[in-house]
């Protein structure tokens, strides 16, 4: 029994939300809030249903023909549902956060409309059943995030938007070329096909490698791999919920997820190894990991530091993908989820500091733990997770990646992982130290840059609880990683599906 409506409806919830939001007047704040939350909750429910269906062994597929030989396919497979779950969960959190964050700001209609579109695209990316559909949503994502990036409308934001577009659109073009080449070689190629592209290996080795380079090159821009990462730190001018979503799920993850799809579902891991592309990818990812960390150390403001940290962290996923073996796969998949949770927490917290206290620079953070304990606690959890310390989710993935590296006989990857952990510690622990162990305005030394008392608690409740929630989840995902339907469990399920057909 194929429930074709399921992926379509899941996709449509946020699309409808976007349409309704666009058609509402700017002043209809309450209705918009309801619509946002309703759609987010509905989407989570639908994704839960999909999780259930997938674990029962169904792969619900919706498809129709666009032109001859090219279909539009939405398929709820395990990998896609995993990403969909992440994005819908984080969408709920981020929506709540954004409602609080944009309290009283201008252009909220535009913001939430494009926000919903952005999530639609992300979900579409998750559920795409073939490369063409993926491309559609991938480009949609570029377009729908642009208004969010330039939301502030300042000269800096506009410049950032321009850089963002330069990178992403060029990447989109490269990707398009790769996809077209692939389609001309193989016709429509579903992600669900078992044999990958191996039948073409003998005759088209060079072409396959070229296509791989184009595809991954195009995707790597969104995944912010060095040296294609330049847009990401600049895009930090966007409002905090946008940065959170951009970093945690939407954009960078879309790139990483695309690479996952290309390697696992398109080429097949054996073929990728055969072509020798995985090693190159692993090296590139390692360079990105180390470079991102090094640059993060040099940053003196909070959000840029987090941005470079993202650059470094997202490449863990790529690194895991390029390790040939189940552990690397599990690590990559789990990191996709874990990093999302942890990074979104960090960005929420950064936004909270900025909103409540006006903190943007690291040296303004002294003693903020006393003023905003829950936020700081959440931040600490996120930071420890980034370092990869147990019991946070970050440890789990780092562990699996390391195991995968050993399994693949790539010992140097372990060195990279350890070095990255250490570097992460070098740039996150000082922040944690500042938060808790230094004396600052909360202890009567100096003044916060711009203090607003937004709520009864340490800040506005809408801002606080999402951060706390994601922090709790990211601890829970690490502490109880062995539970059924935990991220790790699901990742294992997907990986086993990949390796043991």
């Amino acid at each position, binding site marked *: 029994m194929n429930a074709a409506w399921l992926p379509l409806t899941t996709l449509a919830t946020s699309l409808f939300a976007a349409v309704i939001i*666009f058609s509402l007047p700017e002043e209809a704040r309450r209705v918009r809030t309801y619509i946002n939350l309703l759609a987010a909750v509905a989407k989570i429910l639908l994704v839960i249903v999909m999780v259930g269906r997938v674990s029962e062994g169904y792969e619900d597929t919706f498809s*129709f023909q666009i032109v001859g030989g090219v279909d539009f396919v939405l398929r709820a497979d395990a990998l896609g549902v995993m990403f969909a779950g992440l994005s819908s969960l984080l969408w709920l959190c981020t929506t709540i956060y954004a409602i609080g964050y944009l309290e009283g700001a201008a252009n909220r209609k535009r913001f939430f409309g494009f926000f919903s579109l952005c999530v639609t695209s992300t979900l579409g990316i998750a559920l795409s059943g073939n490369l063409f559909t993926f491309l559609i949503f991938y480009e949609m994502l570029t377009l729908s995030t642009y208004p969010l990036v330039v939301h502030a409308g300042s000269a800096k934001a506009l410049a950032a*938007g321009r850089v963002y577009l330069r990178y992403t659109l060029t990447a989109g073009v490269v990707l398009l070329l790769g996809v077209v080449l692939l389609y001309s070689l193989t016709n429509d190629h579903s992600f669900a096909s078992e044999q990958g592209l191996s039948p073409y290996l003998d005759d088209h080795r060079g072409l396959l490698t070229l296509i791989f380079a184009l595809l991954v090159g195009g995707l790597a821009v969104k995944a912010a791999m060095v040296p294609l990462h330049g847009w990401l730190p600049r895009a930090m001018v966007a409002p905090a919920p946008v940065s959170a979503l951009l970093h945690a799920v939407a954009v960078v993850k879309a790139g990483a997820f695309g690479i996952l799809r290309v390697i696992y579902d398109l080429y097949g891991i054996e073929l990728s190894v055969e072509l020798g592309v995985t090693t190159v990818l692993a090296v590139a990812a390692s360079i990105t990991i180390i470079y991102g960390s090094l640059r993060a150390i040099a940053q003196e403001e909070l959000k840029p530091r987090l941005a470079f940290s993202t650059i470094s962290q997202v490449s863990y996923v790529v690194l895991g993908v390029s390790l040939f073996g189940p552990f690397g796969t599990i690590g990559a998949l789990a990191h996709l989820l874990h990093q999302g949770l942890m990074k979104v927490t960090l960005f929420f917290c950064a936004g909270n500091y900025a909103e409540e206290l006006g903190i943007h620079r690291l040296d303004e953070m002294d003693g903020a733990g006393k003023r905003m304990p829950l936020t700081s606690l959440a931040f600490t959890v996120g930071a420890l997770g980034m370092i990869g310390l147990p019991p946070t989710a970050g440890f789990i993935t780092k562990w699996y990646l390391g195991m995968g590296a050993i399994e693949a006989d790539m010992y140097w990857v372990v060195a990279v992982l350890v070095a990255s952990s250490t570097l992460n510690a070098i740039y996150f622990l000082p922040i944690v130290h500042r938060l808790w162990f230094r004396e600052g305005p909360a202890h009567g030394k100096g003044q916060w840059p711009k203090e607003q008392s937004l709520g009864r608690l340490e800040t506005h409740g809408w801002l606080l609880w999402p951060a706390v929630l994601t922090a709790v989840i990211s601890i829970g995902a690490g502490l109880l990683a062995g539970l059924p339907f935990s991220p790790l469990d699901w990742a294992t399920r997907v990986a086993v599906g990949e390796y043991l057909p």
Partner: protein
Amino acid sequence: MIWRFGLYDNTFDPLWMTDWALAAVLLLPMVFGALGAVFRPSRLLPVALACLPILLAGGVMVLDYQQVGLLRWQWEVAGIELTLRLSGLSALMLLITQWTAAAVAVYTPGYLRLTLPNASVRWLWPLMGLLVSALSLIWLAADLLILYAALESMGLAAVGMLLLSGKSAALQAGMRYLLLALVGSLAFLLGVALLMSQWGTLDLIALEARVEPEPLTWVAAALIGAGLALKAALFPLHGWLTPVHENAWTPVSALHAALVIKASLYILMMLWGILLPETLFAPRLVAWLGMLAIVWGGLVAWRADSLKTLIASSTVGQLGYLMVAFPLVLGPNIAPLPLSLAWDGFWLHLMGHALAKAAMFMAAGNLIIATGESSLKALAGTSRRLPLSLLIFGMAAVTLMGLPPSAGFTAKWLLLQSMVLTQQWLAVAALLAGTLLTAAYVFRVFRYSFDETAPRHDYQPLAPGMDAVALCLAVAAFALGLLAHFPLGLLHGGGA
């Protein structure tokens, strides 16, 4: 190639209802146009009502086509054979023409009410009617005489409409356009004359059967090609286009950019398909010029100061995409797959561009009306005050950029695939570069509009429906991309 244009005999006689529908399609626009001159509708509803029967008639024809296949009409008047036919392609073009024109017509009353134009407005409706009739006739014509007559009347109607705004710049540009269009059609006529004298017929089917590759055919093809290129604003003969669009009324620009230039291109494609089925270099030349067009149009649009110049220049670039497709469709030894892909892509792009360009002109017109200025700088802050118009502009731009999920994307996809299969890497590069250039100039608009630091303007409120019509067109361009299978099915249906 030729069956794709429906240039073959068939045995079925059209149903009687189809005859009436044909009459309605060809005559009703003129009739209603004339009535419009008398009554000068200032509301949306009567215009919409007038459009209805025409659209219905078009629908009936398309339905008949789907049932029966190719439809042919033939008359003999004073020893002259006149032939019309409805192939899948013509049906598709007819639909696009009618719906786009209807959208433009519905948009017009609101526009006129807000811009308070001069007395020459009375000419608008009859000219529009004439234009639509002539366009419909072009899609249907199957002999050179009708084609010539329709082409000329379309051209004159278009010139007339473009002049209506009465601004000196418009007159100047219109005069240039008029002269070039007339000379272009004389070149076309010269070519036709050569063909007629050699092969002794004006009927396309007969011509196709008789024509042989020999120097005279080539000279004729060259003359026809040059003349039509001038009329279709193909690079480098596009110079007249930008000023014309810049100064005309918005609905007129929309109609012109969306349909009129496409008609010349259609004829060019069809005649070259007949005359030069096996030539390699002429289509290549067009394609090379097309690549230049993509880059040139993009650059000009990128540096444009005013919104309408930008859109008009973008048309040049977009035509380049179509030009680039020429060697994929025309030429010797093209494998069936790339040929069919390119064929689909060509027409899909043409249609998508028609819808999107009309939508874009309307959205831009709305922005210009609301801000009272046509320069890009005046857009500052519009994202807050006129989000819908801007959104429509953006959606139309998505089609132009060829980003999914739009007709532009699907068309580009098809073209790219065809180019890859035929290994025309330069064209691939041009197409991809075109995407980036388009993005560059489109997002330049957005950059201005997102500027929040600009001083506030007083914005003129828009008439009801003005945004809605544009939105419908833009959405249609999206839908055309996602549901391209259905319209393209019509294209293939004629091959039965």
